[in-house]
Structure formats: structure tokens, C-alpha cells
């Protein structure tokens, strides 16, 4: 058992390192045969490692979590016993990644990997329990080291869990994106508290969660909005040689526009990520950093200190804070900083909403009206609050919640006309709505608008009914109850290009009428 334990320790060191490198995909910077003493790892170096790959190779990102995590998970099964193999795996992985992974992964194999991984996790847990249970001073090592080792094991363990989660999450495309932002959110002080090994692991986790390719890029990558200190998570242009801590400075120096604000640009993936804050330990994503901090308490007492729980916002308070403005990554957009008439966005939230509204598909359809579509779910919810209440309709199909807005719209556009809802018209004549009878506009209106368009069909139906009913119900004030015709609105209506044809339908009815009343006296007395 003791052997095992020692082995484990060594292996753990080696493995931690191998993992970190593997996920960093920087085999050149950190060769696989690098000595496994964590003491050698300098903080800046480490960070550089994970920052470096920041070059966005977006096409690859979604796949990477799978590749990055599944492969090792398989191999990790034996890593406690086989340190060298771990390194190999690291190498393998790097190779695979560098070969430019065009993967067509098979979910089934992934699933099997997953279960395998689970098994190993159990093993690991047992192992760690054992270590914890057998912790003793006879080890001859300083207590601190022991605890560090323990932490290392725990971190290792959790890293596997992270892999598990991310692997599972890789099933869902959206989760892949979310993971991408996990990396940078380790507070510096946290790094300081932990020893090198821990640092390693954490960075490895970060790296794992931040599946970036390793080509030294110059493109700007920004992390998801972090109210605490957004810029600290932004990877700025020409960042390759800089540590994450210096990001701000870099940015300050390089991105100062003629205007007095700095322009930040998030990448598409960051913008679309559902979560912006990720637990460095378990990888869980959060929308707010406060929620993340609450969550972190569950990971240990060190996260319960007031300092850890406080908003880390004021750290940079001493420096003069520049006004930050954001640029949309979509080239050609007015909100893109390369646009001639660039108009910056004020907050990251603005960026997100702008990007989704302007450059993304409108995926959310209102379930009530089935016509309105939105790309921002909040917009849908806002709409649903009013859906059905938008009673001011234009013939073009646009609805307005306010009458003056509708009239402004109609004033603006030629040929548009107010559309009278059928219930208001009491079905007496739906058609009405179409002020324009010229066929072009008619068709136009019919294309996208529900009942404005089917005027003629409905009209015909009513006509017919009116004719039929007329002789018998002559003395009833309303010859027909038109509410029956509400249903006709639902029918897809042909556009009547030929009004003559449409009305030829009427003629039989009118003939009937003529016949019926033809017998009446036509004395000229009645003319005056």
C-alpha cells in the first residue's frame, strides 16, 4: 500500500504536469519529458501557457472538449501505475490536436469512454480516501506538503470530474462553447494561495475548459462579461507574449482609440455562450459571478473568507479606469470597430443582445401568435407579455401595441393601410382591411399577413350566404350571423388575381334574388 501511495504521488505529479501540458497543447514550450517538480513551474509561465493558445481557432472548438477529454480519460485509467504512459498520452493528444483534428466522433464510443471514466473515478476516490485515511507524520515530509498532496489528489479527482462533465456536455453544442470561457476565471490570489501543484492542476483545468488551439494568433478574444473585472478576462490583440495579469495594460497601450474610450471586442463564441462564469473546480457555469462565489463556498473553507466572497472589483480601483466600449465582431456591422461610422456598444450585455438580435437566427418563436420570432429569449418573453394585445395591425403584417405607432408607420410607408381585425369587424366584412385593391399590393399584403389578405375569400363566402339567406330572412335586421365565418380566416387563401373570376361566383346568387323579387310591382310611382 505504501508503494502504491508513493507511486501515486509521483504519478500524480507527473500526471498533473502531463495533463496541463496536454491541455495546453503546447508541447514545444513544455516538453513532455520536463521534470515533474512542481516547484519549477513559475506562475507567469504557467499562465502564459494557457493564455497562449488563446488564438481562436473557432472551427475546432466545439470538437475539442471531446477530444481533449475523452482521449485522456481512457488513458487515465492506468495512470496511477504508469506515469510514463500518461506522458505518452499527453504527447498523443498534442499530436492529435496539432494534426488539426477533423474529427468525426462517435457518441457511442464517447459514451463507453464515459462509463469507463466513471469507473476510474471511483477507483480514484477510493484511492484518495485511502490516502486521507492513512495520512501520517511518518512520511517524513512536511505537513504542508502532505496537505498539498492531498489537495493535488482532490484537484486531480475533480479534474476528472470536469472531464466527465465536459465530455457529457460535449454532447450539447452549446455547452462546448460555455466551457471555453471557464479558464481565465481563476483569481490571482487564489493561485497564490495554492502551491505550484495546485496551480498546475487548476491551470490544467482551465486549459481543459479552454480548448483553444495553439497557433499564436493575434486576434482579439474576450471572455464573457464578468462584472468583477471584465477586462481581466479579455484576451487582447497581440497577447501572445503577455501574461494574463497584464492584459489590461496591453489593452490600454494598444487599443486606445482617438476617442477617450477603449474598444473591446468579444468573439462570437464568447458572445453566444450561455454562461459567463465557471467554477474552476467543477466547471459548473453561472450567469452571474455572485452566484459563482456562492457556489464556490461549497468547495472548501478557503472560499468562505470575506475576501473570497467579496466582489473582487476594487482591486484595480487605484488605477484610473478608462471608459470601456465594445465592438461587435461581425465585420461590416455598424457596431464593428472597423466600420466607418462605428458606434460602440456600451456594455457586454449590449454586445450580447446586439449580436444575437442582429446577426443570429431568430430561433425563438412565440407560441401564441406563431409569427413573431426572436433571437434573444428575453425579447420573446417581453413579447409574450403583450402578444395578443398588439391590436394595432398594419396590412403588411406588422403589429403595434400603440395606435400612434401604427399610424406613424402607415404615414411613412406608401400602400400600407390599417388592418381591421375581424372580431372588431364582427365578421361583417373582413376584407375591408385591404385598402389597396390593386393586385400587387394585395398580393404583397397577402403574403405575410393573416386576415388582411383573405378579404376576398371571406367576402365571397359572406356574399353567398347573404344571398342565400336574404329572401327568407328578409326582415331580420342582420341577415346573417357572420361570426360563422371567423373560421375562414384560417384557411390559406389563394390570391385573387382575377377579380372578375372571383365575382362570377356571385352572379348565380344575384340571379336568384332577381327572380324572387322580380314579381313585385315595379310601378313608376315609386320613383321620384
Amino acid at each position: 500500500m505504501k508503494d502504491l501511495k508513493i507511486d501515486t504521488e509521483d504519478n500524480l505529479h507527473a500526471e498533473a504536469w502531463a495533463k496541463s501540458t496536454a491541455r495546453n497543447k503546447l508541447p514545444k514550450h513544455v516538453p513532455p519529458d520536463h521534470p515533474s517538480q512542481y516547484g519549477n513551474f513559475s506562475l507567469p509561465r504557467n499562465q502564459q501557457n494557457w493564455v497562449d493558445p488563446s488564438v481562436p481557432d473557432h472551427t475546432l472548438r466545439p470538437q475539442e472538449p471531446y477530444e481533449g477529454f475523452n482521449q485522456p480519460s481512457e488513458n487515465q485509467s492506468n495512470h496511477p501505475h504508469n506515469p510514463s504512459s500518461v506522458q505518452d498520452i499527453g504527447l498523443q493528444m498534442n499530436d492529435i490536436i496539432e494534426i488539426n483534428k477533423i474529427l468525426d466522433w462517435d457518441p457511442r464510443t464517447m459514451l463507453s469512454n464515459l462509463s469507463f471514466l466513471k469507473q476510474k473515478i471511483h477507483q480514484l476516490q477510493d484511492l484518495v480516501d485511502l490516502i486521507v485515511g492513512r495520512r501520517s507524520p511518518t512520511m517524513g515530509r512536511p505537513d504542508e506538503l502532505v496537505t498539498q498532496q492531498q489537495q493535488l489528489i482532490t484537484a486531480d479527482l475533480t479534474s476528472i470530474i470536469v472531464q466527465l462533465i465536459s465530455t457529457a456536455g460535449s454532447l450539447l453544442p452549446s455547452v462546448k462553447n460555455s466551457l471555453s470561457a471557464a479558464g481565465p476565471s481563476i483569481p490571482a490570489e487564489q493561485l497564490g494561495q495554492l502551491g505550484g501543484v495546485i496551480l498546475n492542476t487548476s491551470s490544467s483545468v482551465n486549459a481543459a475548459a479552454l480548448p483553444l488551439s495553439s497557433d499564436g494568433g493575434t486576434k482579439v478574444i474576450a471572455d464573457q462579461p464578468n462584472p468583477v473585472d471584465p477586462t481581466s478576462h479579455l484576451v487582447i490583440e497581440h497577447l501572445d507574449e503577455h501574461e494574463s495579469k497584464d492584459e489590461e495594460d496591453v489593452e490600454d497601450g494598444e487599443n486606445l482609440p482617438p476617442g477617450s474610450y477603449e474598444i473591446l471586442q468579444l468573439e462570437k463564441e464568447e458572445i453566444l455562450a450561455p454562461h459567463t462564469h465557471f467554477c474552476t473546480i467543477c466547471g459548473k457555469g453561472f450567469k452571474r459571478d455572485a452566484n459563482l462565489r456562492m457556489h464556490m463556498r461549497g468547495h472548501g473553507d478557503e472560499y468562505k473568507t470575506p475576501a473570497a466572497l467579496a466582489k473582487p472589483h476594487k482591486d484595480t480601483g487605484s488605477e484610473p479606469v478608462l471608459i470601456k466600449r465594445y465592438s461587435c465582431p461581425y465585420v461590416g456591422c455598424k457596431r464593428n470597430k472597423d466600420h466607418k461610422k462605428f458606434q460602440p456598444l456600451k456594455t457586454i450585455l449590449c454586445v450580447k443582445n446586439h449580436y444575437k438580435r442582429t446577426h443570429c437566427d431568430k430561433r425563438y418563436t412565440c407560441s401564441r401568435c406563431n409569427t413573431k420570432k426572436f433571437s434573444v429569449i428575453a425579447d420573446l418573453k417581453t413579447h409574450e407579455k403583450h402578444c395578443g394585445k398588439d391590436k394595432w395591425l398594419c396590412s403588411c403584417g406588422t403589429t403595434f401595441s400603440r395606435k400612434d405607432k401604427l399610424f406613424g408607420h402607415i404615414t411613412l410607408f406608401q400602400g400600407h393601410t390599417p388592418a381591421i381585425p375581424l372580431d372588431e369587424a364582427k365578421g361583417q366584412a373582413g376584407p375591408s382591411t385591404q385598402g389597396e385593391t390593386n393586385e400587387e399590393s394585395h398580393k404583397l399584403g397577402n403574403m405575410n399577413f393573416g386576415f388582411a389578405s383573405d378579404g376576398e375569400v371571406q367576402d365571397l363566402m359572406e356574399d353567398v350566404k347573404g344571398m342565400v339567406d336574404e329572401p327568407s330572412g328578409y326582415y331580420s335586421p342582420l341577415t346573417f350571423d357572420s361570426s360563422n365565418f371567423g373560421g375562414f380566416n384560417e384557411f390559406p387563401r389563394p390570391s385573387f388575381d382575377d377579380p372578375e373570376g372571383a365575382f362570377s361566383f356571385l352572379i348565380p346568387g344575384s340571379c336568384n334574388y332577381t327572380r324572387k323579387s322580380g314579381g313585385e310591382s315595379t310601378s313608376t310611382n315609386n320613383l321620384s
Partner: protein
Amino acid sequence: MKKQKMSSSSTTSGNPFDLLSDEIVFLVLDHLSPNPLDSKSFSLVCKSFYSLESLHRRSLRPLRTQHLPSVLSRYPNLSLLDLSLCPRVPDSSLHLLSSSPSLSLSLRSIDLSRSRFFSASGLTSLALRCINLVEVDVSNATELRDAGAAALAQAKNLERLRMSRCKMVTDMGVGCLAVGCRKLRELVLKWCLGVGDLGVGLVAVKCKELRTLDVSYLPISNKCLPSIMKLPYLEDLILEGCYGIDDDGLAALKDGCHSLKSLDISSCQSISQVGVPSITSGSTSLRHLNLSYCIPVTFALAGSLKRLSVLQTLKLDGCMVTISGLKALGDCCASLTELSLSKCAGVTDEGLSALVTKHRQLKKLDITCCRKITDVSIAHISRSCTELTSLRMESCTLVPKEAFVLIGQRCPHLEELDLTDNEIDDEGLEYISRCSRIRVLKLGICLNITDKGLSCIGGACPKLIELDLYRSAGVTGVGILSIARGCPSLEIINVSYCNDITDASLMSLSKCSSLNTLECRGCPLITSLGISAIAVSCRKLTKLDIKKCGNIDDTGMIPLAHYSQNLRQINLSYTSVTDVGLLSLASVSCLQSMTILHLKGLTACGLAAALLTCGGLTKVKLQSSFRSMLPHLLFDHLEARGCTFHWRNKVFQAELDPKCWKIQLEEQMQ
């Protein structure tokens, strides 16, 4: 066809009319008097005249929509269809109209102002098929909704649209009209209470051809005025009773609308004197201005009116008037020809005299109810305004009888004179009779006049068309006789409460064959004999009021029913008519309005039968006791036919003494 007819006739029959070509007959018909009976007589001459008249006729006012199919086939070239006599115009009738191939091309104007039961469906087919439709009147279609307005909006060529009192129409409907009918020149939205700034504003934005816009009594505010004022051709703007418009809104008039010729801001109570300068500075070409019930007429107002150099008509009815204001008015608006000061408080001799001496070319003057004026004003008026054609001075009670001599002497061009409730006597009438062009003479409540004065009128005023002798109790049969002899073109006469009028008077009046309105309320001496005489001779009679003529009974109704086929309105209250008379009257197919209160001989069954027989009824005033006596279904049925019932529950009212009814009335009021 025509050639055949020509050749055959010239060879065989030798009918001289056959030599006339159709075109010549059409020209002759063009000159036929507007009286519909004339063309009817013409068409009954022979077959060819019948067909020619059918082809020639352009306008038609049918009584029932039931006859439309045959009527439409007979008159293929109708361009004006007036359905105001048809209380019930269902959609089917409109479908029928629009499906007639010839009519759908020729129809240019349709009047539905008194009709009900049509809806958007009928209007749609009308608008879509009758492509040349230019004028539509759907006033009083209180059940018409936005859909109906939108249906009308499909009439692309519509130029004149009147839709007053379409209360259910909102901005949306008017918006459709604005977008659809771009050629609109005249739009009347009076009393369309659902229409506000947005609708009117959109109309102003979209319908650039508008000449006449009536937005009276709409809940509009200042917001829509700027766009209205940008209408390039707007000539006539009626803003009567728009409480939402104030002085700030009128500022919009400052910049614009040089085309504006007529402006009516009467009863706009939010407008004060402050706003008037904006009107006068902006629209200097204004010809007609109506400030009634709106702004006090002061010196300042007159000052701001000075800029309107071409103003012809100024109406200041019901305004507070100051002497200085009237005097100042005299110095401005030199071209004024028509002035109305009726019911103005504060009109005095001093002010009015100063005013009229400056405006010598006045043609129409209305000083109704200016109770402070005396003979001084009349003297000034008659001296300076010798061109007067119309003088209305009802209830100028301080004017002594001598003053009317002056009017008769100095205003020879008078055509319309309203002397109701004045002190005029026979001598005055004698002088008034010098105005030989007089057409309308109102002598109601002139208690000083007798047959002598009236005989002078009858002897000298052959053009008299309307004579009102309401409660002028001094008039008897002699006076009426002279009127009947001297005024053959008399159309309207009111002899109500002239107690001495007898059957002989009516018989003499029956010589006036153009008579269409006869009101002889409260003439107890009139019997069925007189009514019969009127009925036989006055075939154009459309309105008859014999209320409180207790001696008229069924024997009067039978000839009336037989001869007066044009009778539309009758008041039979307090007469001795019974079921029989009412039933016979019901055969008058034109009859639309009946007032039958306090008919002792009327039973529920007789009433029901009469109501059911009379198919064209639109309005019946009834004792409310009948409501419970007759089944509900009957009334429902009649209402569905287009008839409305007015239920009255007045107790039987004893007649006031004719000689002193005015005093009694005043006592009652107090």
C-alpha cells in the same frame, strides 16, 4: 334598331315624333323640369318615349330596394342613385347594384345617408365593381364599423365622401380611407366620434387633393392641425365644435393654407381672441369665416379681422358683442356681403348703425333675436343696405311697426324676409309687398297683421314660395284666398293656429298646384272636406300636418290616400281619424313618417294592420300605451324593415287660448 324604327315609322304610321332622332329627344329631355312627375308623364306617352326616357335618365331616387332589379334593368345609364327613401338597403341590394354590368360602369354617385342594414360586405362589392364611383354618402350609418370604412376605401376613384354620424368608425377605418381613396376632394367626418387626431392626421397626410374637410365635433386636438394646414388645395375647413383645438393649435394656421377660402371654427370653446390673429395672418384669402359661439366680438377682434380683405361672409352668431367691436367691424372687411349677428348679446342701435352704414353692399343680414335694436337700426339698415336680398329679424321686439314701412320702401330686392314675432301691421305689410321678388316671407306670431295686409302681399308678390303665418291669428280665409290667387308657385304654407281658417281657405289653396307642405295645426274649423280638396289638387303634397284639427276624420284620409301618392310625412295627432283612415293612408307607398298620438278611434289591431301595410315607414311616433298592447314581435319585425319607433307618453294637452297663448306660455315658463 333605331334605323329600323325610323324607316318603318316614316313609311307607315307617320307619327311625327318618330322623325326626331334620339339625340334631339335627349336634348328636349335635358330641358325638362326637374320635377320627376314630368319625366314620368313623358315616358308614358308611347313605347319609344318610354325607352328613350329610360336611356336618358341619369338620376334615380327609388322608394324600395325591392324594386331595384327591375329598375336597374330599365335605367341602364344611371349615374346618380339616391337611396335616401329606402330605409332598408341590405347588402344584397348593393351586391345587385354592383353586379349590374351597365350600372357598375355608369354609377358615379350613391346616397345611402338614410339607409340602414348595409354592411362592409355590400360596400366592398360596390367599391370594387362600380369603378367610376365618385361620390358616396353613408351619413347616419351609425352601425357602420371600421370594416365598412375599409370597404369604401377600395373605391379608388372616390372624390366625395360624407360619413357624418358614423359613430362606430374609428381612426383605423378612416386610416384605411386615407390610404385607399387618394383622390378624395371632400370628406365629411362630422360626429364620427371615434375618429381622433391620428385618423384625421393621416387623412391630411395621404389625401393631398382634399378641398373640403369637415371634422366637426370630433375629439381632435391641436396635433392634427399642422398636417391639415399643409394640404395644398384645401379650401373649406369646418372645425365646428372641436373643443380640443385652442389658440396654440391655431398657430398652425399662421404659416399655411393659402388656398383656404372658408373656415368654420364655431362653437370651438377653447379658442379665445388670442388665436384669431393667427387665422387672419395665415389665410388672407379667406372668404367665409364662421366664429359663431366662439369669441367675443371686440375692438381687438375686429382689428385682427382687418387683414381679411376679401372676406365676404362673417358669422358671429351667439357671440358677445361690444359696441366698439361692431364699430370697428365697420372699418374692416370692406367686401363683406353677408353678416350674421343672430342671438348676439350686446347688439345695440349705436353699434349696428355704425356697422351697416359702412357696409353698403351687404346682401344678407341676420339680426335674429337682437332684442335691443329699435327703429334707429332699421332706419340705418334700410338706408345704407339697399341691396339686401335677405333680412332675418325674428324677435326684434323693440322695433316698432313704423320701421317696417322703411324696409318696404328702401329694400326692393328683398327675397327672403323673416319677421317672425315682430310688431309689423297691415301698413307695414303693404309696404313690404313692394318687394315684388320676395320668395320667402315669415310672418309667424305677428299678431297685428290681418287679411288686409296679406291681401297686399298676395296681390304684389307672385314669386312667393314660402309663407309662414304660424299663430298669426288675425289671418282668415280672405287673406289666404288672396295669397292662393296671387302666388301660384306657393310651395310651403303654415297656417297653424290661425283659428279662423276654414275649408274654404284650403279649397282656395288647392289652386296652388306646387304646394308640397301644408301645416294647419290647431285649426278646428278645417274638416275632411278641405283636406280632400288639397289632396285632389295638390298632387305634390309631401308633408301634411293636421294635428289638433279635430274635425278631420276618415273621410279626409281616403282621398288623401288615393291622390297624394307623394305624401311622405303626416301628423294626425288629436284628429278624429280611426283605424279606417289610417289603414287607407297606409296604402301611400311613399309614406315614411307618421305621428299618431292621441287618436281616440285608433285600436291596437288597426294600428298593427296599418303599420304592417305601410312598407316604407321609417319613423312612427306612437302613444307608449300601444307598446304593451301589441306583440313585441311585431315591433321587432317593423324595426327590421327599417322603421324606428318614438314612444311618447304626453298627457292630453288642453289648447291654449289663441289670442293670449304667448302670455300664457311665458307664465308657464316662469
